[in-house]
């Protein structure tokens, strides 16, 4: 039963905790205070927030770290193990390292990628604008504004030359990276063409060039019949609708009995973009026959042939070989007649004999190699279905499109490499990430306990 005193107690208790009449707005003070404290405890709160979502946090951390590493790796090409792609400046730098030797001048086209416009200058030729494609199955063009014919030698594509103000389109059937291109002087070409073209058919461009007067400057061709040793290399480019059929027919032209064989071959693309290439080694005496048969397989778009006269080299090797053999015989005779000589002298003679025999073996090998090259000519056959894409003329628009294309390739390449790097960081740093997640869990538990207390 409630008494008056109880009522009064209750009333006083209510009065003692009655709502405050004043409005100090302490929450606003607290808000400012918390803001100041938040600055002081920013790190602690960040950790708490991160610890509340350890998995998401760890994933974000991993991705951020990986992307950062990838970005740094790309920013410093040496870290990513990728060499910088050739830039215009680098290409020009390469070209500026042109060297001139007896055969003309040469530059190394290795490392060129994309459609880099080159301007070559040399004492021998006014200039060449070369559009070099570093990717397979792309086409390039070499234009010569010189008034003298110029020979171009590319191991991957065979040899060709540009006539005066002629424009020669060529296809690099290899990747073009690291390919060596040699540009011979007009004199060197003239000499080799004149010396080695006695059996060539007069229908190719080389023959046309010879027929146009260059041959008139040639020494007597009869020299060729006087035991000349000539390595012949021909290139023929055909256009036909049936690339595959022509490709197969070319292979059937070889006669195994003469030791002929296909050095390499390949067929690429499809439909109008299908191309095929074969490098044939045929008997020198059958070179003209094989070329004639090749011309029947399609429309001849381009054809050229060069010959490298190695007669002097062969003669030189033979002479040195004879000399070395003579010396070898003399040393052997000495050894026979001076059996009572001191051991030291005998050892010296044997040492000399060993050196002489090594030289003889090397020269014999060189002579055989030259003999093989002379006996088997090389024909590079290029077969394609359609016309090659026209060489792009330099213009602002082309530059823009090329730059855009390069940027796209670089971008896609970067993205792919970045993803690969992220994956490698994810997997490689597994132990590290596990440690981070465990730490976040521990921190969360600790901070929660602290907050609850």
């Amino acid at each position, binding site marked *: 039963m409630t008494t008056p005193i109880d009522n009064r107690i209750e009333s006083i*208790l209510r009065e003692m*905790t009655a709502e405050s009449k004043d409005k100090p707005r*302490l929450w606003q003070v607290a808000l400012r205070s918390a803001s100041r404290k938040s600055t002081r405890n920013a790190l602690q709160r960040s950790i708490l927030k991160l610890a509340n979502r350890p998995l998401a946090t760890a994933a974000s951390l991993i991705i951020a770290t990986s992307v950062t590493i990838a970005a740094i790796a790309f920013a410093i090409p040496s870290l990513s193990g990728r060499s910088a792609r050739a830039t215009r400046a680098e290409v020009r730098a390469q070209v500026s390292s042109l060297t001139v030797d007896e055969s003309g001048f040469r530059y190394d086209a290795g490392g060129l990628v994309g459609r880099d416009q080159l301007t070559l200058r040399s004492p021998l030729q006014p200039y060449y604008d070369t559009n070099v494609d570093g990717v397979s199955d792309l086409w390039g063009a070499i234009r010569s504004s010189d008034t003298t014919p110029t020979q171009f030698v590319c191991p991957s594509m065979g040899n060709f030359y540009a006539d005066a103000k002629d424009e020669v389109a060529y296809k690099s059937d290899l990747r073009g990276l690291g390919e060596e291109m040699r540009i011979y002087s007009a004199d060197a070409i003239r000499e080799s063409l004149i010396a080695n073209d006695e059996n060539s058919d007069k229908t190719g461009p080389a023959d046309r060039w010879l027929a146009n007067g260059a041959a008139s400057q040639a020494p007597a061709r009869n020299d060729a019949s006087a035991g000349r040793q000539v390595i012949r290399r021909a290139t023929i480019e055909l256009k036909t609708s049936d690339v595959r059929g022509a490709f197969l027919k070319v292979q059937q032209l070889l006669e195994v009995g003469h030791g002929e064989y296909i050095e390499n071959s390949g067929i690429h693309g499809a439909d109008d973009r299908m191309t095929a290439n074969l490098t044939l080694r045929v008997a020198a005496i059958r070179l003209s026959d094989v070329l004639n048969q090749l011309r029947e397989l399609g429309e001849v778009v381009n054809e050229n042939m060069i010959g490298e006269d190695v007669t002097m080299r062969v003669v030189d090797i033979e002479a040195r070989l004879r000399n070395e053999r003579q010396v070898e015989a003399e040393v052997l005779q000495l050894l026979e007649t001076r059996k009572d000589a001191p051991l030291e002298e005998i050892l010296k003679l044997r040492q000399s004999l060993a050196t002489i025999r090594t030289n003889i073996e090397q020269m014999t090998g060189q002579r055989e190699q030259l003999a093989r090259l002379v006996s088997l000519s090389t024909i590079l056959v290029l077969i394609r279905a359609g016309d090659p894409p026209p060489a792009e003329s330099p213009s602002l628009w082309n530059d823009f499109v090329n730059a855009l294309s390069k940027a796209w390739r670089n971008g896609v390449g970067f993205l792919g490499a970045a993803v690969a790097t992220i994956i490698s960081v994810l997997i490689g740093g597994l132990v590290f990430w596990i440690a981070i997640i465990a730490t976040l869990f521990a921190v969360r538990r600790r901070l929660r306990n602290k907050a609850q207390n």
Partner: protein
Amino acid sequence: MEPRLGETSDEILLRRFLDGRKSALGELARRYEAPLLGLARGLLRHRDELARDAIQETWVRVIRFGHTFNGDAGLKTWIYRIAINQCRDLARLNQRHETANDDENKTESRASTTRPDNAAIESERDERIRAAIDDLDDAKREILLLCYHEGMTHSEAAAALEIPIGTLKSRLHAALNELRESLDREAL
């Protein structure tokens, strides 16, 4: 359509505040700051500055640890629990100082709560009751003040003190008995 702040539940207000709306905290304060300050004054024996400090710190903790509120109890209970803990902490921190100046403080305190017409019998009786309440130990005093705090149910009080409601009722009964006995002894 989003309900007005005045119609919104405490929990949603907290969530909105955590999402960056400071006005949501203002609405929570409008609901609870005055009652909390009154309770704190009672718990801290009418030391106004301490009470303000306690409630300010309560809001600081709501702001800082609002994200840890898990909804096991109501937000009101959670805030009151923080406020009570703050009052306890402050009372404990000031205990030494309070003990040293106990007599002086009591005189000042009672003087401040004494009405000008304290000659009246009722006023004398009320004064005796207040004195008896203040003489109770902290735990009993806390139970009494919380249970008779305006708008606080026994269930909410039990939750705020983190004790079962049965325990609360028995402690309340014991505290009232002690208070009555104290008053009876004083009357004799």
